[in-house]
């Protein structure tokens, strides 16, 4: 045994050094990540009144369900007063919908969601905060909102005949947006593979999004919970293009 260690000393040292560095880094990152969570949670809880946090009826499942439905409807009625298309994310029924003036124009089934249980165990105060009408503050997407194609006006009939109207296939949608109630949502379109079978790359997408976040900031001091949703790409694009910039979003869970 001693002989083996002696012979492969460099190998053992390299392995142990890398292991120690990785453990140290991961522990440090874990502590910092949890500190960020505590700070974000404390900030959120401080902004909510004690009475709302401790609402007595909320602990009774029957009352909780009815209160959730009341708030969902109340938010819709408020949104119906505006002239803008808005987004409803109903995690209870796994549906994303576009509404205008109180009329549901489009509904898409959520094919996959992560975390699987997104804020389904909140106290009453934080539930109210989570389900209040939120505004999109920043957003980015893999396809343009308005797919404008610039064309110079032809000078004569000959030039007009030469203009080609190519149809370019858009890539799958990845739509990331942050809301003013400190929630991030990532909507990913699911395409079809070569055999026209639904090609859900759930784990691959998730790892990619998380890796991107770490790449942007190795140790983040802020925490924003992120809801990942996978929709049929056609549905996802229809919703994305329907919702205006800085559009309004309402959740139900």
């Amino acid at each position: 045994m001693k002989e083996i260690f002696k012979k492969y000393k460099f190998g053992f040292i390299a392995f142990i050094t890398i292991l120690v560095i990785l453990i140290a880094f991961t522990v440090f990152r874990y502590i910092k990540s949890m500190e960020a969570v505590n700070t974000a949670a404390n900030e959120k809880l401080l902004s909510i009144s004690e009475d709302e946090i401790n609402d007595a009826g909320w602990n009774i499942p029957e009352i909780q369900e009815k209160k959730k439905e009341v708030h969902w409807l109340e938010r819709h009625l408020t949104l119906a007063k505006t002239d803008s298309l808005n987004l409803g994310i109903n995690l209870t029924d796994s549906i994303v919908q576009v509404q205008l003036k109180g009329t549901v124009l489009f509904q898409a089934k959520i094919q996959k969601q992560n975390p699987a249980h997104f804020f389904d165990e909140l106290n009453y105060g934080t539930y109210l905060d989570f389900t209040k009408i939120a505004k999109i503050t920043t957003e980015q997407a893999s396809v343009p909102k308005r797919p404008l194609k610039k064309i110079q006006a032809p000078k004569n009939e000959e030039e007009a005949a030469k203009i080609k109207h190519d149809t370019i296939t858009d890539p799958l949608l990845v739509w990331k947006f942050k809301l003013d109630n400190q929630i991030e949502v990532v909507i990913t379109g699911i395409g079809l593979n070569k055999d026209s079978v639904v090609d859900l790359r759930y784990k691959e997408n998730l790892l990619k999004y998380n890796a991107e976040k770490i790449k942007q900031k190795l140790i983040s001091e802020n925490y924003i919970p992120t809801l990942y949703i996978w929709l049929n790409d056609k549905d996802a694009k229809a919703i994305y293009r329907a919702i205006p910039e800085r559009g309004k979003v309402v959740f139900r869970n």
Partner: protein
Amino acid sequence: MEKVKTILIWLLFVVAILATIVAFAYINISVIPEMQFAKYQAELSKITNTDTATINKEAEIKSLDKKLNQLNKRAQRLTPGNAFLIINTTNNTFELYKNNQIIRQGRCSTGSFIHLEVDSTKSFTFETPKGVMTVQNKVTNPVWTKPDWAFIEEGLPVPPPGHSSRREPNVLGDYALKLGDGYMIHGTLYQRLIGSPVTHGCVRMLDDDLEAVYKTLPVGSKVFIY
């Protein structure tokens, strides 16, 4: 033999190091974010007072039922009771509703999103506006009054307003429903293009669909476009 064994052991070290890196990368990329969310959710679910004795359950449920009933009635009143049309400009589809039931659905064509630049001061964007519009007028055998862009995109000189060359019959199908600001729902000679974004902002439909929409939607009906 000894040489092969040495190589294999060194290879084992490399594999072990790579596997460790992958495992820790996975912990950082996947496990820590999951733990963060679980912790955050747990913090937000905490309550400081668990006393539920102060609430009259039956009375509370009754009051909530009453409220729900009222809210549901108000919400139902918001959806047009009669006929209305919903246009999806991304997928170029439509749904025709009557008494809250879909009575017809299919393909249509909406704006091409072409931005036609004439010069630095003049341009046209062929986009179907999103929002809610109202059927303002219905006509049979509509005649198209060609706007300026129809000549510009063909590379033709723009005639003065009211000029006879602007009037073009038999290109909009048998019916047209006017939505205001020059936007219409109408038919087309190019039926094979229905389902693609090819219009200048109007909504084009197949002949049968157009007839159904024309006959179902009275003047004043809502047309929701998203």
